[in-house]
Structures are given as structure tokens and as C-alpha cells.
């Protein structure tokens, strides 16, 4: 195994483009090291991206949007008061990943590029309209995060490409987000279902919404029909019923030891409904703790 720690993204991309065999980028290593140690994936080339300048920065831009470095850990996100206040759902989704020890290392980009359908931060990023700058041998491009995972363990990144920054939109007025997951325990488990809702209000009426589900399909899924159920409503019972139906309809889950198809399909609606209520209350200016605070 070749180990590199380049100083720039251009250098990282060039190393990956020239590498033979299996290549991995090393962010927090909480997936890479587990796969390495259990002989699931032994990279021929491992490229540590943490020595690249700025990868630990959390930057609030003049227009209210955020630029996050790709080595920012879950702990660093959740210690950042203003980011947590603006995007509580996204920060809580990240905070659900693993223990204190895992939080010290795990990153959003790693969670995304590992390609797990149950990745907790991904539905929250999709609902929040997060975009990623990708650096590769051909230069830079920016894409919506939902276009990156293409199946379990697979991404749309080409050989030599890596994420060099993540962009979170400006929060703006009267808006809120939330992410909830169902697990059989209270801590330290993999999502059976995850649901993220991000919405904006005009008075009591929802004017914008995005709903994304995790662990119910081969990739995290944006559900436009679920968003349509919310838009124009005041989150009344009728709208919630339509939301639940749209979420269940969007599910094509697997049966496994964590949950059956029928269970996942039903719980997806329930989680989305609860997340919508929290996002709505947050948009109204209420401070609500989603999961453990």
C-alpha cells in the first residue's frame, strides 16, 4: 500500500489519476480503516487529504452560505454554534454517527463517498441542497450531493476526482431543517430508516420544502412528491397524510435483520412526519432538540 499526504487537491487528484488498482482517500478513516482492517478493501494507494490547506475550515460567506472543508469532523461541526443554529438538522444528523471517538474523525464527505444507503448525514445534506466542489484531472466542477452516490459503495466520481469542498446554502428567514432516524437502540447503531425535511414558511404556510429518505433504497432518495405534499399547506393533518403516503411510495428497501420491507416502508412515513413537525417548529423560531443534544 502506497501512502501519500499531498499538500493540494490538484496534487491529490493527480496522484489518484495515476494510481493503479484500488485507491482510497483518507479523511477521518472511520470507514477506510474498518474496511482495511477487516480485509474488505485493501487500497493499493491511500491518499490522506488532511494535510491540504483549509480542509478543517468552516467558513460563513458574505451571502450567508457556508463552505466546509472536507476534513471538518462531526465534533467540529457541532461545536460551531452559528452553524448549529443555522442548520440544526444537518448538524444533528452528523452527530448521530458513532461515538465521541468516531465524531472526532468522521466527515460529511466520507459519509457521502462511502456510499452507504444508510449514511446518516446524507439525507440531511440532500434536503439542505448541499453541493460539492469536485477537483479532478480535468479541473473543477460543482454538483448537487445527491448526484454522487449511485449505489451501495458506489459513486459517480471519475478516476482521479475527489471532493474538495462542501457548500451549504444560506439559511435565510423562516426556515428549518430536521433529521430523524429509527434504530432499535438509543445509540450506536445503523439507521433502519432515516428521514430529513427542510422547509421554509410564509406566515404559517410552507412555501418551499425538500424531503429525503435514507436506508430505504440503494441510495439516499430525494422525494419530490413528499415535498409537494407539504408545499402550500400549514402542515395540517391532510398534508401530513399525503407526506406519509408519498414517503412510503418512494421506498424500495431490502429485508434484513434490522428491518423488514413492510416495517421500513411504514416507518419511513412516520419518521418523515415527525421530522416535518420539528422542521416546521424550527422555521417558526422554536428551539427544539431533535435527538440527544
Amino acid at each position, binding site marked *: 500500500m502506497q501512502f501519500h499526504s499531498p499538500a493540494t487537491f490538484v496534487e491529490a487528484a493527480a496522484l489518484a489519476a495515476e494510481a493503479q488498482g484500488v485507491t482510497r482517500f483518507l479523511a477521518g*478513516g472511520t470507514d477506510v480503516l474498518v474496511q482495511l*482492517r477487516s480485509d474488505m478493501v485493501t487500497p493499493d494507494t491511500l491518499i490522506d487529504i488532511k494535510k491540504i490547506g483549509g480542509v478543517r475550515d468552516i467558513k460563513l460567506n458574505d451571502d450567508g452560505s457556508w463552505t466546509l472543508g472536507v476534513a471538518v469532523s462531526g465534533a467540529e461541526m457541532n461545536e460551531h454554534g452559528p452553524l448549529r443554529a443555522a442548520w440544526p438538522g444537518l448538524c444533528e444528523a452528523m452527530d448521530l454517527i458513532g461515538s465521541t*471517538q468516531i465524531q*472526532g474523525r468522521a466527515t460529511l464527505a466520507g459519509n457521502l463517498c462511502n456510499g452507504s444507503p444508510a449514511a446518516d448525514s446524507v439525507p440531511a445534506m440532500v434536503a439542505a441542497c448541499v453541493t460539492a466542489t469536485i477537483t479532478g484531472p480535468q479541473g473543477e466542477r460543482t454538483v448537487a450531493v445527491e448526484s454522487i452516490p449511485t449505489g451501495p459503495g458506489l459513486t459517480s466520481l471519475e478516476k482521479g476526482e475527489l471532493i474538495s469542498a462542501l457548500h451549504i446554502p444560506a439559511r435565510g428567514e423562516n426556515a428549518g431543517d430536521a433529521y430523524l432516524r429509527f434504530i432499535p437502540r438509543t445509540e*450506536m447503531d445503523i439507521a433502519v430508516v432515516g428521514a430529513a425535511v427542510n422547509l421554509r414558511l410564509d406566515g404559517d404556510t410552507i412555501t418551499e420544502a425538500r424531503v429525503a429518505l435514507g436506508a430505504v433504497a440503494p441510495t439516499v432518495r430525494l422525494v419530490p412528491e413528499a415535498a409537494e405534499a407539504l408545499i402550500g399547506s400549514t402542515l395540517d393533518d391532510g398534508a401530513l397524510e399525503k407526506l406519509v403516503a408519498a414517503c412510503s411510495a418512494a421506498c424500495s428497501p431490502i429485508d434484513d435483520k434490522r428491518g423488514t420491507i413492510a416495517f421500513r416502508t411504514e416507518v419511513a412515513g412516520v419518521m418523515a412526519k415527525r421530522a416535518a413537525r420539528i422542521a416546521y417548529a424550527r422555521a417558526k423560531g422554536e428551539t427544539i432538540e431533535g435527538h*440527544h443534544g
Partner: protein
Amino acid sequence: MSKIHVTTTVNGDEMEFLCDPRETLLDVLRDRLNLTGAKEGCGTGDCGACSVTMNGRLVCSCLVLGAEAEGAEIATVEGIAQGDRLHPLQRKFIEHAALQCGICTPGILVAAKALLEKHPDPTEEQVRFWLAGNLCRCTGYDKIIRAVMDAAAEMREAA
């Protein structure tokens, strides 16, 4: 396979080692630096027996490569006591019988110390969440939690 030369600081002392690119920080600490306090329970980030801090951040040393320690500051359980003087956490663990086989103890002491540096006055719930990644097969946790709460109280009084 070519070895990587790494210079790092462990418990305040500068150290150098050569390691294989696949070797974890846990392997390096135990097998190359003879610091066998950190234990390998699972090797996959689930049990916390290998907990150390790296640049002040609590991590599982089984999920860090030795090569990543270049230029970092590592702290292990061996650095907690000051010579013969035990840290309040260590004393309270003995007083409360918060250990039986002891495999989990070094990791829990390192994790609890990191907690108290950040939250000197934690609630019981905070302690339980913070230590959720440190598994213990012997004690049933209550004694561990009591020892940490008691050590926190003593350290606040002394501060």
C-alpha cells in the same frame, strides 16, 4: 514494502518510529513504542478500549494509521498519572471499584479525562452519552459513571 518514518509526540515526549503504511496507531503504540495501556478490543471502532487523544481530540487509535501521527500530539493512559501521583479519575475508579478485568479501563480513563476537560460539570446523561463508545463487559457501567461524577466533583473543588 517501504516503511514510513514518523516523528510524533506521545505524552509530551518526542518519539520517532518506522512503520508499515497499513499499521495503525494502536499497533505502533503497543508494538513499537511499548505503550501497552491502550488495548485492542475489536479493532473496528466499536469498543473504545484503544482510546487516545490526538491533538486534544478523543479518537480510537485502531482507526488511525501510524503514518497519520506525523507531527501530532498523542496522549495515552500512561500520561494520566503524575509520577506516582494518580489522577483523581484513577483514584476514584479504585475507590468505586469501577473496574473488574480492566481491559476497558485505560480507554475509559482517557475518554473521561477528555470529557472533564471540556465539561467540568457534566450531568449523568452527558457522561453516559460521552462514554457510549466505551464498552465494558464486566461492571454494568453504574460504578464507572459514579466514579467519573465523583472525580468531576473533586476536581471542581480543587480548581
